[in-house]
């Protein structure tokens, strides 16, 4: 049976969208593993019902495998889970009201569960993270310099990096790379030509826009929750 990953992020408390995605995935062929790459919470709406559902899936739900994202990092900072630091980046960029909205949107009883979430998963030769291997808040996009993308892949020692922070959906392959290195030290000179095998960075989208990844063929399918499955199956393009 085809093995597929469903990669979701940026739900921000939206249980309706999560249910729509679960419904979609039930109709999607293959053996599907569901990864939720952070930003399950946000300041816009109460997140408790979604968090409860993620922690306690319904019997017919696909089990979600969750990591923390930028908004989870902010609430952990603000709630004292990161030592003396507070959510200053959020406070400066969005203001005190948003900080309050965020802390009000999540019941304190969920904080320990959020704090126990991992930064990312490494599955096969793929890294699944929210931002980048450097920082949970880093945006990787089509415009990110390839050298930076390569570095973020190298840090996790993976060939595929799935990222959510930018909210964009893209599949960028680094097909070939070469650089000549010459080192001079007290032992003399040495030259080396370094090549890069094919690697890729995949933006998975956010909210209703999620990604299906076919592990066997390395193909991505960008999906919007609620669209008819038969349309999606025809090709690999944004619908």
């Amino acid at each position, binding site marked *: 049976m085809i093995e597929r990953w469903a990669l979701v992020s940026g739900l921000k408390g939206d249980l309706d969208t999560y249910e729509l995605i679960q419904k979609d995935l039930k109709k999607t062929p293959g053996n599907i593993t569901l990864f939720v790459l952070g930003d399950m919470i946000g300041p816009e709406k109460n997140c408790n019902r979604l968090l409860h559902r993620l922690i306690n899936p319904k019997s017919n739900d696909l089990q979600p495998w969750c990591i923390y994202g930028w908004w989870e990092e902010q609430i952990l900072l603000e709630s004292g889970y990161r030592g003396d630091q507070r959510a200053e980046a959020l406070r400066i960029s969005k203001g005190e009201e948003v900080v309050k909205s965020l802390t009000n949107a999540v019941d304190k009883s969920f904080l320990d569960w959020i704090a126990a979430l991992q930064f990312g998963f490494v599955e096969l030769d793929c890294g699944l993270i929210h931002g980048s291997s*450097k920082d949970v808040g880093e945006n990787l996009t*089509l415009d990110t*310099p*390839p*050298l*930076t993308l*390569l*570095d973020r892949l*190298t*840090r996790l020692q993976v060939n595929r990096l799935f990222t959510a922070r930018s909210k964009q959906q*893209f*599949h*960028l*392959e*680094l*097909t*070939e*790379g*070469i*650089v*000549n*290195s*010459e*080192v*001079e*030290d*007290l032992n003399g000179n040495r030259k*080396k030509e*370094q090549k*890069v095998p094919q690697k*890729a960075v995949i933006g998975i989208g956010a909210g209703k826009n999620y990604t299906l990844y076919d592990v066997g063929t390395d193909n*991505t*399918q*960008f999906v919007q929750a609620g669209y008819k499955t038969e349309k999606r199956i025809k*090709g*690999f*393009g*944004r619908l």
Partner: protein
Amino acid sequence: MNQAVISCLHANLPAVEAVLKDIELQGITNITCLGDLVGYGPQPNEVIELIRDKEIPTCQGCWDEDVVDGLDACDCSYPSQLAEKRGHFAHQWTTDKLTTENKDYLANLPYSIRKDKCLFVHGSPNSQHEYLLPDMDAFAALERVENARAEILFCGHTHQPYIRELADGSIAVKIKNAVPKDTQEKEIQLPMRRIVNAGSVGEPRHGGTKATYVVYNDVTNEVKIREVEYDIELTCKAIIDAGLPPIFAWRLKNGFEFAEQAEDASHVCER
């Protein structure tokens, strides 16, 4: 014009004096220091005061940061628990010895110094604790220089002096699953960049006992690694007299600083 770059002085006054003398003999007045003025060695205040007196621009090293802010590096910096214990002892000893004025000086050092196309840092542009080893992944090395918007990156921290040139690079990219569906491909040429590691004045880790530093000519772009002999016995005696771990003296005398090198020095400290 020639300029000298020194790093990792580690409270070794005889080594610092010998290197500064060597620089002076070459008629070089432009000196930049990449930090780690203290740690391991027996003369932290004396070394800081010498650098301050000579008004040498200096960036903050990991030891300089740690004695001010408390231990910051994780256990990855040490090859064994014993080495870690010795390191912590030296940290506490140094903290106790430093004057308030010298602690303030260390606390206020900048993370980096920029001069035209050159960037001077202790470890890497990312962190004072990151080791840019001579044979690290070439693309990752190039990324450190390029993302710091420099043409030449001067660093220390590894205690191994080297000059690395990264040239003739390119990366080909292809956008799959693009909108519109046409596949977009392009090849990006990478710029030539250099990383220059100044080695260490006070704690060499190149297998020998001589202090090292580098001389850079900003007209010809030539870089030379300099090795300088100093009175090791004097430093070793001071280490023993100060009550610091005798192995600190032993490894200086025998050039066995490899004993303190972490197994995976490329590991990026997450703290």
